[in-house]
């Protein structure tokens, strides 16, 4: 019961905090929210900021061609409440990211669903909706 209550509080908190970060543009109009894709590569830049943070990663596309991907994440304040700081990720980190693909494939853009850094097992799979 206690565990269920904790899960409920975490999810509810994520929702309330999340509403702070999604006003800048419509996620539904920017990404295919009912699809996911996975990329694996090295982090080029972590932009911890408002209104949305971005992770940029060099990783292969579905044709095996190396691309620079822009992965949209939560606002700085929102991620901070979920334990992510501006020092959590560093250029060169090898990461695996699952996200909702952007509507324009040429953008190589995704909306973060979860991220893993295999070297130390660090993971994030929170919510910013």
């Amino acid at each position, binding site marked *: 019961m206690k565990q269920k209550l904790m899960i409920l509080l975490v999810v509810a908190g994520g929702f309330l905090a999340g509403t702070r970060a999604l006003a800048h543009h419509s996620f539904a*109009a920017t990404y295919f929210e009912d699809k996911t894709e996975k990329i694996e590569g090295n982090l080029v830049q972590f932009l911890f900021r408002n209104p949305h943070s971005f992770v940029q990663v060099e990783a292969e596309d579905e044709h095996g061609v190396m691309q620079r991907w822009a992965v949209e994440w939560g606002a700085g304040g929102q991620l901070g409440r979920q334990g992510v700081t501006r020092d959590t990720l560093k250029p060169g980190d090898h990461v695996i990211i699952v996200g909702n693909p952007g509507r324009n494939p040429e953008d190589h853009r995704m909306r973060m669903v979860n991220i893993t850094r295999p070297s130390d097992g660090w993971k994030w799979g929170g919510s910013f909706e």
Partner: protein
Amino acid sequence: MIKFLKPVPRWGLVIVIAFIGVSLSAEVDLSGTWANRGHQDWLDRGRGPDVVDYLGLPISEAGREKALAYTSALQSEPERQCEYYAPTYMVLGPFGLNIWNETDPVTSKIIAWRMGAWIDKDIDTVWMDGRAHPSKNAFHPYSGFTTGVWEGDTLTTRSTHMKVAYIRRNGTPTSDQTTLTEHIVRHGDILAIMGIIEDPVYLTEPAVMASIWEQDPHANVPRMSQACEPIAEDPRLEDGTVPHYLPGKNPFVNEVTQIYHIPQEAVMGGAETMYPEFRKKIKDKYIRPEKCDRYCCGPVTDPALKCIRDGSGKER
């Protein structure tokens, strides 16, 4: 008893009138922190509207053309990333509200209400001191220019001098000639704001929208906007590309029709689509989908609550 009914001295009358003046004042205290209750239009206010969906908006042909040219990558341009929405966003956005007032230090009269900023909206100042709106050629700041007057317990405001913005976050535009009339009503702990948006360029009729807040001292709603720093969000734009769709080339025109079976003539919006009579007009063209494929559970976030909206028995 007879003694009590003796004529009241003049100074006493002054005191009585002064007290009556206080008790009969129509002004209502709006100050405090208010949590948004997004129980209506949750998709629009929350994760955002569908990419091409202008249903229920009285958009003009020019508004439709501009909306169809829009791609949200536009807002990844460095010069647009930190732009604010116009004051019309008050009745469109999903955020809590922090309201306070400015008083005259001599008279203690309220000279302005401040409607706090959001991450993407400036502080809106509602001037209550009877000042006139500036010349139509004056600068249009992100906050526009707003004056207010109490009509009974309702604060009615009028905003002008706004910048070009959006009436729906899928690129449906409003022009810099837009005006906003708001009726702000407090019912105990509930704050209701009804906005009437008029735009001679991109709307053919007024669009009426409303939003609800509930007073919550724990809402922790900031007054100021958080810092925003332009960056290279989208590598494709680094060569100066201006993202857009050319006329007739928007690839998502049919998406809402495919998913929800809503006829194109409804999806494309226009004043007619605001009215109940329009439902009768498209009745024979609409076939309800057999099952719900997405956004089936509304704003529900309680994982313990099962959401089944079709006959499949599968939770969605």
